[in-house]
C-alpha cells in the first residue's frame, strides 16, 4: 500500500534531493511528514488529484500528492 509525494524547493532538500518520494498509504499527511522528519508547518499546500486537502487527509493507495512549501512570500 504505497503512494507518491511530489515536492520541490526546501522539501526536496529535506528528502535527500528527491522530487518524488514513495510513502506508505493509510496515514495522514501530517503523520507522514513527521515520519519523514519534516516539520508539517513547512508545508503550505497539499494537492491530491487536483483537489486541495488538509494535512489531516489520509493518504490512499496510489495517491500522487503534491506537497508544496513556500519560500518566497507575497
Amino acid at each position, binding site marked *: 500500500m504505497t503512494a507518491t509525494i*511530489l*515536492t*520541490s*524547493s*526546501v522539501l*526536496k532538500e*529535506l528528502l535527500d534531493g528527491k*522530487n518524488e518520494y514513495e510513502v506508505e498509504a493509510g496515514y495522514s499527511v501530517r503523520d507522514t511528514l513527521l515520519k519523514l522528519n519534516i*516539520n508539517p*508547518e*513547512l*508545508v*503550505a*499546500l497539499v*494537492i491530491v488529484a487536483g483537489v*486541495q486537502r488538509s494535512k489531516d487527509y489520509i493518504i490512499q493507495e496510489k495517491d500522487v500528492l*503534491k506537497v*508544496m*512549501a*513556500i*519560500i*518566497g*512570500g*507575497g
Partner: protein
Amino acid sequence: MNGYGGKILRVNLTTGKIAKEPTPVEVARDFIGGRGFGAYYLFKEVPQGADPLGPLNKLIISSGPMSGLMIPGAGKCDFTTKSPLTGGYASASMGGHFTAEMKYAGLDSIILEGISSKPVYLFIDIEKIELRDASEYWGQGTIEVEKQLKEKFGEEFQIAVIGPGGENAVSYACINHDFGRQAGRGGVGAVMGIKKVKAIVIHGTNSIPVADTKTYRQAGKALYKACKDASFLAEWTRYGTTVVTSWCDEVGALPTRNFSAGSFEDGKNLYGPVMREKIVITDKGCFGCPSPCGKYSRSKKYDSYVEGPEYETIGLLGSNLGISDIEAVAQANLLADDAGIDTISAGNAIGWAMECYEKGILTREDTDGLDLHFGNIEATFELLGKISRKEGLGALLAEGVKKASQKIGKGTEKFAIHVKGMEQSGYATHNATAMLLAYMTCDVGAHHNRSWAITYDIQVGRDLVVPEKVARVIWLQNFRPMFDVLGGCRLQWVELGIDRELYITALDAITGIHRSWDDYEKVGERIWNLTRMFWVRENAGFDRSWDMPSPRFYEEAPESGATKGQITKIEDVHRLLDMYYEQRGWSNEGLPTSDRLVELNLAELVA
C-alpha cells in the same frame, strides 16, 4: 552596450528641459541597472538634506538588462527616490509592461527633476518626448485616467499614473500601472505628485542589442521550459501569492488586528481557494510571464472589478483590520488602487487607528464620527478616501504610523508597527527571528521582499538566534534584490524552483560579459551598503536604534492563535543586530566601516 537601451532620460520639470545622455559604462559595470541605477543616481545627485517633497529630490525610474527580453518575468521596473514616508532610501518595484517599453524606447532610466508649475504628463514615443498638459486628468482616479490615456494613444502605449493620493502627497502614495500593478512602497507616488506629473505614457519599437543572439534564444527557451516543467506551476498560477494566506494563518504569521496576533479566527474566509471560488475571474500576468500570479476578480456585492487582492492586501486590509469578507477586501483594494495609495501602509495606518479607538485613545470626535471598531468595513472604505484626500483623521493617517503615533502619543507608539517609519508588510514576527531581523534591517523599512526568511525560521527553529540565521538573511538581502537590479521577477526562481544558473547563461549571452551569481551578489552587497550610507547621510545620529522593530514583537505576546504566548526576547533582538553588524562588516552602531566601503568600491562615491 548589449542588454541596455543605451540612454538616460532627464526631465527637468521646473525648466521643461528634456535631455538624453549615454548610459555610463562604469555605472552599468558597478550597479548593473534597475535598483542599482536608482541607488547610484539617488546618492550622487540628490543633495544631502533635500526635502523629499521639494524640488531637489528626484524620482529615478529604471529598467535592467533583463527587461523587455525573452526571459520569464522580464517586466520589473524600479522607482527610487528619497522617501517622504521615512526620510531615507525608497525603492519600489513594479511589474507589468512599462519597463519593456522603456527599453524599446532606448531608455535605461528616466530621471524626473524639479517641480512643474502645472499638472503635466510625460509623453514618450521613441524619439518624440514631450511634457503635455494634464489639467483634464488631475483629480481623477488612476483607473479612469489609465483608461482614458489608453483610449487616446492605443493599447501599445504603457502608462504609469498617480491618483489623488499622489496629488495630495500622501506619504505612502503609490504609482499605478496596467490597472492593478503598483510601485507601492515608500511614497514614490507622492514624489511624482509633488512634481505635478500625473502620468508617464511610453511606447517604443527599438531593438535591444544582444551580444550572442543564438545562445540568448536557447537560454531563454530553456528558462521557459523549466517553468513549464515545474512541479507546482499549476498551483502557483491558480492561487498566486494567495497560496500563502492559509499557511500564514496556520503558523501565526497572518497580521491580525494591528499585528496583535498572527492567526485570525475567521481567516478561513480569506484563504486562496475561497477567493478563487468566490471572486476570481481569470489570471493576469506581467510582460513575458509564464506563471501569472495576478488574479483578476469581480465582486458581485460591490459590482466592481479589481486586479487582486494579492496576499499582502488580504493580510493588511483584511485580517489586520478584523475583516473576513474577501469581497470587502477586494473592494478596499480597488479603492486604494484608484486613490493611488499603498495597501500595506494604509492597512497598517487604519489598523493602528482602530486599536487607538478600541483603547479609547481616539473617540468619535477624533474620527469624524466613524465607529472604528475592528471589522468595520464601511469605516475602512471611508478612511481610505479620507487618507487620499488628507481629510480629517485621514490627514493624520496619511503621514504614516510613526509620525501619527508621535503626534497622538499616549503610548500609541508601541503599537505603531513599522521600522524606520515604513509600516510592516504582511508577516507577523512575534516568534520568527530571521524574519524579524529581515524586517529590522531591510533597506527601505519593514518590507519583506528583500529577505523572506520565515520558512527558514520554521525549518531550523523559530526562536533560534544563531549566526547561520543571520547569514541566511544577509545572503537573501544580497541576492534576491538582484532581480530588481536586473529588471526581472524573482518568483519563477523562488517559487517554481528554477535553477538559477539558467539565468546566468541568458545574462551572459545578453550582455556579452560573464558574471557568476557570486559576482552579482557582490553587486548586491555594494548596493546594500550604498543605500545604508544614504540613511546615515540623511539622518543625523543614525544608529542601531533605527533598526529596532515595533515593541509589539518583543513586549506583547499574542493572546490567541498559533503564536499564543510566544515572543522574541529583547536581548535576542540585540543579539541578532550584533551578529548582523559583525557579519556585514559594520560598526556596533550599524554603520559601514571605511574599510568595507573601500572593499566595495564605494569610497569615492560616498566621500
